[in-house]
């Protein structure tokens, strides 16, 4: 297990070790011998016609692994699922990215992948909302929609020939993200789930878990009304734009945003998978202990979160039994 980057004193180290061991023991090790490293031979019965999937290769008549991970079998398909890897996109994934370039009829986004993703102008809803062909005027006005360094959330539409992603943002919930924080976590901590958009009602906070490891925590917006916002922006002076953005967020919401963001940071340092329940647990723990928001990043709190999580999961498994 990779070393957790925390400065802990002796007792804290022991407590953390105990909590992590408890978590490990809760997971039934069905096939601990299914984990392989590079160049390990994968055991297969030679009579069957095995399909070799991702992470495998044939060498001297044997099937060997090319990555470190766990061997998975689905009928006759054998593949190696790596536990810790670069972001591996799938069609339909929710992505949060930052605009790096405004190119001809498209925006280039940085998404923590080996190539920048492309968001075509035609995959984006127009400000006035009508469905029509994009003209040269639309192309010239691209900068009014998204500029460099804007944060956007979108969905993966398909892969291009060179392996880069093509995104689409044609729904009301995709689009520019404002009034919040962008966090970077290792992408393998965000598992694919049914829902990636979470609205924390009692705190007025939107939480978007991008599958590429970019997490957005921000003030809640009902529907991304690019219509109203664009018109407002055009009529007002440009210099009041930035003040307008910051003055409308109430202090309490800003506090909650920071608290949620710190909870995510703590969990990513500990290496726990990010799901809504875990994040809310950490949040509630910090509120019940009356910790200041900056005090959440202290090592003591990390250890407490680990212990709480171990408790929570053991009580869950007990309930299931």
């Amino acid at each position, binding site marked *: 297990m990779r070393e957790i980057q925390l400065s802990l004193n002796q007792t804290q180290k022991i407590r953390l070790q105990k909590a992590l061991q408890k978590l490990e023991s809760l997971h039934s090790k069905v096939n601990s011998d299914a984990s392989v490293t590079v160049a390990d031979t994968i055991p297969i019965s030679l009579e069957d016609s095995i399909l070799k999937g991702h992470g495998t290769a044939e060498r001297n008549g044997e099937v060997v692994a090319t990555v470190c991970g766990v061997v998975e079998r689905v009928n006759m398909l054998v593949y190696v699922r790596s536990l810790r890897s670069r972001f591996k996109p799938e069609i339909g994934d929710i992505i949060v990215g930052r605009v790096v370039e405004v190119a001809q009829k498209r925006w280039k986004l940085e998404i923590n992948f080996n190539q920048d993703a492309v968001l075509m102008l035609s995959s984006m809803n127009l400000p006035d909302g009508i469905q029509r062909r994009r003209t040269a005027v639309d192309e010239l006005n691209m900068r009014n929609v998204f500029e460099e360094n804007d944060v956007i959330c979108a969905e993966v539409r398909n892969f291009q020939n060179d392996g880069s992603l093509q995104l689409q943002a044609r729904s009301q919930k995709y689009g520019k993200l404002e009034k919040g924080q962008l966090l970077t976590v290792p992408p393998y901590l965000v598992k694919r*789930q049914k829902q990636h958009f979470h609205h924390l009602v009692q705190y007025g906070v939107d939480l978007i878990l991008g599958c590429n490891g970019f997490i957005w925590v921000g003030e809640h917006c009902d529907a991304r009304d690019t219509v109203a916002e664009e018109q407002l922006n055009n009529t007002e002076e440009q210099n009041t734009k930035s003040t307008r953005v910051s003055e409308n967020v109430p202090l309490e919401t800003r506090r909650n945003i920071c608290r949620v963001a710190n909870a995510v940071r703590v969990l990513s340092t500990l290496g726990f998978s990010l799901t809504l329940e875990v994040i809310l647990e950490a949040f509630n723990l910090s509120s019940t202990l009356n910790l200041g928001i900056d005090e959440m990043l202290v090592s003591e709190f990390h250890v407490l979160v680990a212990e709480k999580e171990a408790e929570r999961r053991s009580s869950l498994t007990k309930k299931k039994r």
Partner: protein
Amino acid sequence: MSGRAGRRGIDDRGICILMVDEKLEPPTAKMMLKGSADSLNSAFHLSYNMLLNQMRCEDGDPENLLRNSFYQFQADRAIPDLEKQVKVLEEERDSMIIEEEDNLKNYYDLIQQYKSLKKDVCDIVFSPKYCLPFLQAGRIVCLQCTGINESSPSFSIEDKVTWGVIINFDRVKSFSEDDASRKPEDSNYTVDVLTRCVVSRDGIAKKNIKIVPLKESGEPLVVSVSISEITSLSSARLYLSKDLLPLEVRENTLKKVLEILSRNPTGLPLDPEGDMKIQSNSYKKAVRRIEALEHLFEKHEIANLPLSSKNSKYVTSDDVVELKGKVACEISSADELTLTELMFNGVLKDIKVEEMISLLSCFVWQEKLQDAAKPREELDLLFSQLQDTARRVAKLQLECKVQIDVENFVSSFRPDIMEAVYAWAKGSKFYEIMEITQVFEGSLIRAIRRLEEVLQQLIQAAKSIGETELEAKFEEAVSKIKRDIVFAASLYL
């Protein structure tokens, strides 16, 4: 009558002259001209491919899709009629007054239960596995008299039974497949029994033999009965004389049976406990529902389709699409579930490219060809593997309560053009393959083009699971069939 006379946008009225060259009834002509149009009934069907693709996106809501479809609209409109039918039937039922209804109902229920229990016991006792050793010549048996109509309800516990003597038994040769593969204990048997019968001849000189109780008038005859008509076996055995042709011999045998019966009225039945233990006393409940409201099952169908996807590992329990599901998302031109299963079972991996192409042709050929030639051995073997996979998929769907007919589903895959496509993949000319089959040229060309579509989708699917060998194989297959007149963009060369 459809169509329009007059120039569009210019004439506001057109004249149409009908020339009738056959005798036409006036009502028929009236219906042709003034009748209503064919009613438009929605045949909307949510395929697995669509369902999986919806689950892949965060926003996908297949229930919404179904709820807003025209099919659902028509179903909802039909509800008032169905409710009226339900009311009418209920009134009819309520109007039938029987005295002492409750007691009678209890009694009737008890009888039904008793009968079904007895039937279960009989089935177990008389399964060939257990009773064959006891069907020896000379054994006295208790039979059902003919003329008992099982479907009409009877209010007595006693069946009309009689007694006879076993002469012989025979295995029924079934005309269907796999006679040799059926084990002896699974086959059906008929037993030749000597008992009293009444022979009547109807007008066409056909003999109609009825089994009657021993004491009634009739002749002693040997008849073949199936095992299901035997109610019980006796432990008594008679010495049979070798020759049963003379009437007196038969008469004497029956007299001996009557004697044994008079001494032991129960007939000394064979104890079933001696053979085996009856392990389950299962009481069947007969449930009758009014069929009319089943039209609302369309709503249940959505709930059942995802269930079968979950059961076969296409989707996890949290509705996240798994690897198999992703493969099925790619395939839209053919039956996605069977094809995915086939791919994951490695069937497509080891066979040669031409054989794989001809196997895939079974997925794209939907017409029924009369007397099609059977394909050659290797292709037939592959086809039977395909049928097994299809059967498994259908059974899984059935378990998840999707309304599907297993045999119908399996027989929707037809091997009629396997030979022709095999020859095409090998490089024959088009006129050569037209000599192999009797299909229309256009149908064959359409099938081959659709096959190429399926192959392209399979290439994408193989890419998503990372099997490079299979992907290369599919690409080779595409290059083998995409040539010549079948894929010519235009016939004006």
